[in-house]
């Protein structure tokens, strides 16, 4: 009887131990996955106001979404600088345009080339 009790206790300790050990790393794995594997998309807004991108510089993660809102009374655009590899095309007053960020880039308005902004991916 005492022998079987001893083994049962051992088994219980073993099960608890395994449970404890396997639980902790699982939680760690999950949190790592959130950061790299399946990133959670963050959303940002850049306002175009008084011929400026506000904020003019923004740091995001790859896959985040940025929405540009044109509050001015004139048409603008948002275009990769200098390569023009991507563009919003003409964005009239009171309209908005969204992009999913894939890489860091400088951008400008081709209609008003003094208007500049910067997206940094960290």
């Amino acid at each position, binding site marked *: 009887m005492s022998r079987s009790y001893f083994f049962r206790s051992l088994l219980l300790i073993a099960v608890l131990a395994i449970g404890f050990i396997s639980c902790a790393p699982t939680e760690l794995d999950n949190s790592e996955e959130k950061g790299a594997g399946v990133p959670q998309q963050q959303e940002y807004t850049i306002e175009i106001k*008084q*011929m*400026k991108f506000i904020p003019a510089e923004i740091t995001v993660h790859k896959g985040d979404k940025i929405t540009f809102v044109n509050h*001015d*009374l*004139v*048409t603008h655009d948002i275009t990769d600088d200098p390569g023009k590899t991507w563009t919003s095309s003409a964005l009239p*007053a009171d309209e908005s345009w969204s992009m999913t960020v894939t890489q860091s880039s400088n951008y400008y308005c*081709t*209609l*008003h*080339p*003094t*208007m500049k902004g910067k997206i940094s991916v960290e």
Partner: protein
Amino acid sequence: MDEIFVTFFNNDFSNNKLKKMIMKKMTPAVMRSFAIAFALFTTTGPAMAQSNPSLTDPEVAHVAVVANQIDIGYADIAIKKSKDGEVVKFAETMKRDHTAVIEQAAALAKKLGVTPKDNAVSQKLLADADKTKKSLNGKSGKAFNKAYIDNEVAYHKAVIGAVEGLLIPETDNAELKQLLQNVVPALKAHLGHAEMVQKNYK
């Protein structure tokens, strides 16, 4: 500097800060154009007792619309005559933006029940613009591009000075004042853009 210009700055303007600002920002030719326009207005206008030019809101609205139309007129000439892509693109922006400003001004005037009223300032601006357009039409090639962009730099400096120094202070209606204030950053961006293009023609 001719006499009427000097007279304008010595007698008709009491605001020293404004005087300095306009002197600093305007090139002589365009400065003279605005100075004569305002001087003309004060000597023929109804508010002679006041030391500053005085405009009613319907007159401010008219000056604002005319100033925008004038730049659209210059842009049309450039779009037709220039073969420099950067100059044409700049001119297209001027046409697009100044048209948008006029549309906003017209919508606001309608909402407020204000009919823009012709006045000595807008008449003088139009008369001077006609001369500039004739001069631009007489040029071609590189000389045209240089003359157009030099005039755009000078014209935007003058308009910024006039909007900040005359039109905004003269406006009573809060919404019209706000519209004029909203236009200033666009005018400044245009000036910066014009100066970028101008570097190619130094």
